[in-house]
């Protein structure tokens, strides 16, 4: 049973550029959430996608956008990159209607902005 996968594992970008990160959920899951984990901090919720729509959003600017595809995979896009966007980006998947709210995390994508 494949768990949550993310690509790429590492990425280096320059300020002002745009980046796309990808996530495939655990088999059987239909909901994908994205988190940003800055160095030495806990993960912070960016947004969640369900049925190809953004269902919840955290306190992140519009430069952060996403998409969910019919196969439940998801992308996170960040425009006009800032140095402060350097972080580990974690994807988590879950099954809607599962009352335990259990989320399974991928290994993350390490983004470095120079």
């Amino acid at each position: 049973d494949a768990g949550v996968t993310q690509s790429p594992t590492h990425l280096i970008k320059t300020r002002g550029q745009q980046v796309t990160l990808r996530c495939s959920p655990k088999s059987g899951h239909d909901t994908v959430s994205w988190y940003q984990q800055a160095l030495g901090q806990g993960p912070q919720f960016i947004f969640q996608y369900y049925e190809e729509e953004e269902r919840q959003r955290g306190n992140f600017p519009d430069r952060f956008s996403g998409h969910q595809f019919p196969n439940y995979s998801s992308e996170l896009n960040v425009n006009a990159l800032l140095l402060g966007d350097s972080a580990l980006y974690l994807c988590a998947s879950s099954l809607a209607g599962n009352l335990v709210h259990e989320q399974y995390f991928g290994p993350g994508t390490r983004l470095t902005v120079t």
Partner: protein
Amino acid sequence: AQSVTQLDSQVPVFEEAPVELRCNYSSSVSVYLFWYVQYPNQGLQLLLKYLSGSTLVKGINGFEAEFNKSQTSFHLRKPSVHISDTAEYFCAVSDRDFGNEKLTFGTGTRLTIIP
């Protein structure tokens, strides 16, 4: 709004000694509570969760946690730690409402096991 406070940023413990990692939360609604572990250069792995019922919850790798509603705490414990327990530990909460499943994390506690 919800918040999670992990009072200790770093906890050094001798191998085979007991450990307690502290977590307090604040929320205006009922919540689910979680502890996650993050090994170096890896994602998060669920250790245990509190949903309802017994306030003592047992998880993987010999860890357990106790939910205390009056003190809004969910401290993590292990009676005897091993070198392999060296990692970052995160406490998290989520709202119980369907469709509001985002996790709010604490800032983490780095557990270092001393041989």
